[in-house]
């Protein structure tokens, strides 16, 4: 709510705590230094700290994945309607991602020529993209103001006709998807997908088409338009990769070991 007075404590919780660029750069630098340091001292560490399957590095991997679940939680909190303060969730996603990334690097034991290293690559790309978006992409966002031509071009009759049809279709669909909602201010969110995935997808498709007709994404630079879809795609690829990694090391350990010893701790300890 925009104008309702709130109690002090609520206001404090809901207060916007922005992560300044300088702080983000410090955090990123700390993560990079930690990774470099790890590679520098790795040779001097005991064997257990160089073997991804050792208890130490196994736990590092688990901790890393748990931390990397925070961004997933951020997505749910932001879109699910349960997050009181999406900005705090955003900050948590940044912090946990960076620490998680360091732990995953440590978990890798420095084996960078094996398929799981692709996950590391995805993580690094995610972090780099996120930092770029926050530091440089933000300036592009600011510079977008008053930069698009389409808003004041001569109206195109065909576009308008197609839009008119689209809007009518959206309204019809909305009667089933969310009867109380106003098409003009409505967009599908996570609960809609949970409740009526088919309708939500259909609505999303129409909304996409409308967006394409508006041409507003095409009116900005490719970097600005697509960094976020790319960021999200990489994140989902990473999640998929983690699942594959866990499944293969657990259920296809021999394949993963490729003839070598299966020395990962949890399988040895718990029996595989």
């Amino acid at each position: 709510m925009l104008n309702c007075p709130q109690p002090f404590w609520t206001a404090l919780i809901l207060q916007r705590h922005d992560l300044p660029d300088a702080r983000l750069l410090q955090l990123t630098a700390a993560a990079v230094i930690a990774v470099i340091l790890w590679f520098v001292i790795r040779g001097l560490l005991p064997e257990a700290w160089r073997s991804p399957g050792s208890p130490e590095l196994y736990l590092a991997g688990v901790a890393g994945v748990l931390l990397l679940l925070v961004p997933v939680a951020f997505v749910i909190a932001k879109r699910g309607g349960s997050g009181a303060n999406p900005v705090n969730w955003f900050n948590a996603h940044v912090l946990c991602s960076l620490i998680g990334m360091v732990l995953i690097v440590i978990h890798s034991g420095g084996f960078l020529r094996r398929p799981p290293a692709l996950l590391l690559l995805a993580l690094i790309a995610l972090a780099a993209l996120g930092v770029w978006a926050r530091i440089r992409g933000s300036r592009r966002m600011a510079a977008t103001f008053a930069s698009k031509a389409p808003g004041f071009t001569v109206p195109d009759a065909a576009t308008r006709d197609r839009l008119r049809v689209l809007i009518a279709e959206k309204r019809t669909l909305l009667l089933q998807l969310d009867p109380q909602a106003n098409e003009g201010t409505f967009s599908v969110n996570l609960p809609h997908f949970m409740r009526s995935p088919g309708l939500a997808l259909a609505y999303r498709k129409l909304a996409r088409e409308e967006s394409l007709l508006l041409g507003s994404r095409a009116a900005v630079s490719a970097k600005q338009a697509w960094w976020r879809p790319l960021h999200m795609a990489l994140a989902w690829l990473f999640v998929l990769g983690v699942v594959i990694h866990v499944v293969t090391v657990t259920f296809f350990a021999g394949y993963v070991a490729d003839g070598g010893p299966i020395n990962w701790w949890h399988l040895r300890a718990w029996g595989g």
Partner: protein
Amino acid sequence: MDTINQGPSERLALLIDLERCTGCKSCEAACKTEHRLGPGEYRNKVVWASALEEAGLAFLTLTCQHCERPACLRACPVNPKAIAKDPLTGIVRVDESRCTGCGECVIACPYSAMGYDAKGHHAVKCDLCTERRAEGDATTACASVCPTQAIRFGKRDELLADARASGRLPRDQDHFLLGPATIYLERTTPRNTATPTAITPARAHPGESRRPSFIDGLAAQTAVQAQTPSFPYGESRADTAPDRVVPGGCNICFNCCTVKFHFKNNKLIKITGNEDDPLLKGRVCPKSQLTLQMYHSEHRLLYPQKRVGARGEGKFERISWDQALDEIADKLKIIRDQYGAEALAMFIGTRTGILDYRATTKMFAQLFGTPNKDGTDPFCASGKNVAFELTLGSIGSGNSYTENDLGSAELYVYIGDNQAETRPVYFGMINDWRIKNGAKMVAVDPRLTATASKADRWLPIRPGTDMALGLALAQHIIANNLHDAQYCADWVLGFEQWRDFILHKQYTPEWAEQATGIAAADIKRLAEEIAAADGCVIFASRGVNQHTNSTQTNRVLMFVSAITGNWGRRGGAFFNMSAGTPIAAKVPEHRAPKINKQRVRRSPAGWTEAMLHGMPYPIRALITCNNPLAQWPGQAKAREAFAALDLMVHIELFANETSAFADYLLPAASGIEKGEIGRSNDDRRIVWIDKMIDPPGEAKSDTWIWIELGKRFGFDDVLKDKYKDPAVFWDEVCIDSDGLRGCTQKRLHSVPYRWVRQPVATEDAPEIETLFLEGTTVPNGAPGRRFPTKSGKLEFWTDELEAKFNVLGLSALPEFYSEREQLVDLPYMELLETDAEAGVISPFCSPATGSARGRIVAPGPDHPGIKLRAQGFDTELVTGRPPAAHFHSWTHYFWQSQEMWPDLYCQIHPDKAAKLGINDGDRVQVESAHGRIEAMAWVHAGIRPTAVFIPIGWGERQPYNPWRPVNFLTDSTQRDPVSDQTNLKVLLCRVSRA
């Protein structure tokens, strides 16, 4: 409007009128001030609603459309949304506390009206000043200041009904069925057709919106955004809620806007227009608001400094005021003893304030005994001042910007006056009357300026030939008996002599077509319109003034006004900027030493030979109060001359190019830090500005500095210590004249807008709306003496005038000549003496001033233009004022002025640009016979294809986007012998990609 939903009747909106908007960006300034937005953050922005290829300027303020179906809101991925739409008012707002800064809303808005705070990482947008209105303000910040009333706020239905009632059509910008609430009114239909040489400014449906590339250049904007803006940007609303508001005025330009200064805990937090002013009604240009950034600037000079490096190197050490003033006084005494008092020159720019310009420094110069004191007049306005004095007997038209007076004209003709950008609020009033009353407007200018863009016709004249146009207008009017014969008989002295001269010379429209490039038919049509109009106001300005024919051109245009009866009437006038402020500060005769030598020249640009070579006599010391090393024509020589001085003192707000050459750098106060009157302005208003805050650091008012320096010479019996209080100085010293005697502190403070229109002979004398009306008598004049000349009539020609002109080898009957550097061969003025020679004593100046004699040279094989063209100088260079956010150097230290107009630019026609392989936003090199600079290309069809325009004001030592000043291209020796005005408006140059 093709919308899906019918909006609620309580729906609020902005109405933006394209017929009124001049693109001044005052709305941007107001918005950022109101919402404390920093560099790069926008809730509104001015765009050009016309393509660069079109010879049109249609501006509009782009801001949130508050759509029925907001694309931004629907794109927001946060749940619940970080963007909400009020179901009653329709206002779309961002809840910044929920915004994660993903930017999807920015991408989604097809109008690109969603802003973004790149430092705080969240969306920002216009919310129609919800918080401001909740605090009691009736309107939005942008609408409250808009100089042209182009922005209105209210209920959408009512705004639409108003527009339709006045026959105006809203634009259809709902291309995507989003149901935008913001209303844009189409430009009006052109009322006239024009011949091919006259261009009707584009009024058709504008094409795509865009801005000149250089404005949004990454490097230029990064330079602004890299620096953290000073207080109060980024502060919370609560921390900037005012506890005190004091009326005053803006001290920058000639519009002299009345403003309100808002304070919290005695700290200045905001400057707004003064809505209590019955004339200006709270309208202000961006500069007035942006002076906030001067008062809080981190670039201000804070303490006296002494040079420790080489001249021009810019190395200084901090010293005390006592040390600075003692050492300056000691050095001045040595120079005075060795060379005489006249070896001190004083260049007093208007930055120093009118009180100091016309009073303190004048008194100091008289007490010291030097005649070599002047300001920027010979670069801007001395030609029109001389012309007014000769014709009218005083400076200024005598008319007022009121509904009864200028508002009642039927025709407005702008000749070389871009009023929309130089006096935006005054232009807003004229444009309002034009629209409401159906008056006509014609603009004569080499460029399609913001002013010309509102005119019915634009006549793209060859620069430097306004005199030919004026002569042809007069010839056509007289030859066809269209003049007001009775008026001429009753109120013009020397009309017959001038009429016969004009007719004899055959200055016909056909003759003028060759010189001006304007079709004879258009000249005739304009002449007939001027003659037929029941009230015609001719506005002239720097485009007419800054020429070697400055005085005579002004006189000719004055004569055109007079013979059509447009002088001394409501709705009829000849205007040329400010009316002058008759401050009467004088030193008692017994205290002023006798001055034995003539002033070297009226123009400071004529002092360089005296500085460099001691010719005609030495000038060894200079005290200057602004930035001559960006401002003086012929920069190369000016810098050489400054380097040769024994003593140079610079009194300034910011370190600039001139500072680097100074021996002593003294920090000055400005505006409300010292208390003063505003600039001389068009309609005779004296605007008082109280001292409200202390200057930063150890900075002092200019008055304080001159009084303290004066004490070291024993001047304190005249320049008294108590005069450091400007209010005391004003009442006791400045207003002892018929025009100002009634303009006391008491009277100025008796009105909530702090101005009084002079002349007012007594404290209770009524203000006079229109001077010189038939049947009236000038103050203290004999009965029937209508005009303040000796004869009581407008004087075109008299024996006395002829004798004066003859001293300089000229005639009082204005014979046509133009400039030496032209693309066609026209008569030009040749000066018969150099600045190193004493010349003759000018009959047009006081005190006694040296002047060169002149000779009009007819075109011939030795014409200087032929030689220059043979060297490849194939383009007319026009210099002039940049848009409204800038004024000379000092606004370049305001971050937002720089954000609005960051780089030095070169306006160039698309045809010429294409020929030279230059694209919009390219870096170009411009070279004249006098120097070379670089600038950014602004490709724009609204300029003569043979010309380029480069503005003044940029300098090499400015903090954000430094550039070499355009005056490296100008020539200090091309001057008007009568007024010593320099030609700054047409020089030949060549342009290439840098």
